């Protein structure tokens, strides 16, 4: 009996261990020099709470935070770039990341995936890469995000006054 339990726990551990997730990938690379990591909180939107509709408020509450991890290419890390890109591609192929759409041309590519089910989305993953500048993975985390909520979030975004301070680290990626 005991041995069965041991076996079960062990196999459970192994199955957890072997499954690479974006979460792990983020943690592993946050200190890596090749990467730029960034956490963005909803406060970035600088919203005037009073002006929001009830719908927009609930949508906003379902949105938790946004994590960004970006790889910037320079002369030394081109080989590394290919390796890391392959890693991200493998992670995103996992079943839990359900792909919504994908765009690619020879030099650049982008995809949008999500975790959860249609009406209860836990995580959105945006992934973009470009041959000569690098790649970026954006995780939008939340609780119970739903399609309607996202639409109202987008409408909020239009009226928001985005706090550029929080996005400063990303400028490094864009400037060459």
């Amino acid at each position, binding site marked *: 009996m005991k041995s069965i339990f041991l076996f079960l726990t062990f196999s459970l551990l192994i199955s957890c261990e072997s499954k690479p997730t974006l979460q792990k990938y983020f943690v592993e690379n946050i200190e890596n020099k090749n990467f730029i990591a960034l956490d963005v909180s909803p406060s970035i939107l600088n919203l005037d709470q009073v002006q929001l509709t009830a719908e927009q408020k609930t949508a906003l509450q379902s949105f938790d935070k946004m994590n960004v991890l970006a790889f910037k290419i320079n002369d030394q890390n081109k080989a590394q770039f290919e390796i890391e890109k392959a890693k991200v591609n493998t992670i995103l192929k996992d079943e839990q990341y359900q792909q*919504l759409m994908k765009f690619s041309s020879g030099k650049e590519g982008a995809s949008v995936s999500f975790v959860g089910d249609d*009406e209860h989305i836990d995580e959105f993953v945006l992934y973009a890469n470009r041959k000569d500048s690098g790649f970026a993975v954006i995780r939008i985390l939340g609780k119970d995000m739903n399609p309607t909520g996202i639409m109202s979030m987008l409408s909020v975004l239009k009226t928001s006054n985005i706090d550029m301070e929080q996005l400063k680290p990303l400028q490094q990626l864009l400037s060459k």
Partner: protein
Amino acid sequence: MKKLVITVLLVVFTNTIFAQGAFDKFDGQDDVTSIIVNKKMFDMMSKVKMDATDKDAQHYISLIKKLDNLKVFTTKSTRVENEMRASATSYIKSAGLEELMRINENGRNIKILVKSGAKDTQVRELLMFIEGAKNDDTVLMSLTGDFDLNDLSVLTDKMRIPGGEELKKATKGSKGPKGPK
């Protein structure tokens, strides 16, 4: 018993992969621009609550619910164009697609094929192949689902997909004004 289930599952899965994989090799190639929209996306878009009084929006949503996959591949390379033509031809044969119409516009050949469902206007798959010209891309488009041919004009109005204009002509049955684009 369990083994049987697994075998059946495997067969089913590999089959679907093969069925959808006819053009997947073009995805990610250097000279190819590809746009792929999955069923999940259409599902999700159809769940967005829209104004119930807006007829166009309602029509649009009911159409989106019926769509499965949209794949568009475009290229400027002749090598890839030939490959596309070859895989399209073999796919048309194996999947049993019927030609809906063929247009020759300004020297570009446009072929539109469909796989019909129960009714004549019901479409399970729509395939379009537009030959490239000097400055224009070759376009290969595949749309799967279970929709009505007449619904498509709504879609082409709302989505800007390559070849949308040609599709519109096909669904309306008129050739429209000719002229250089």
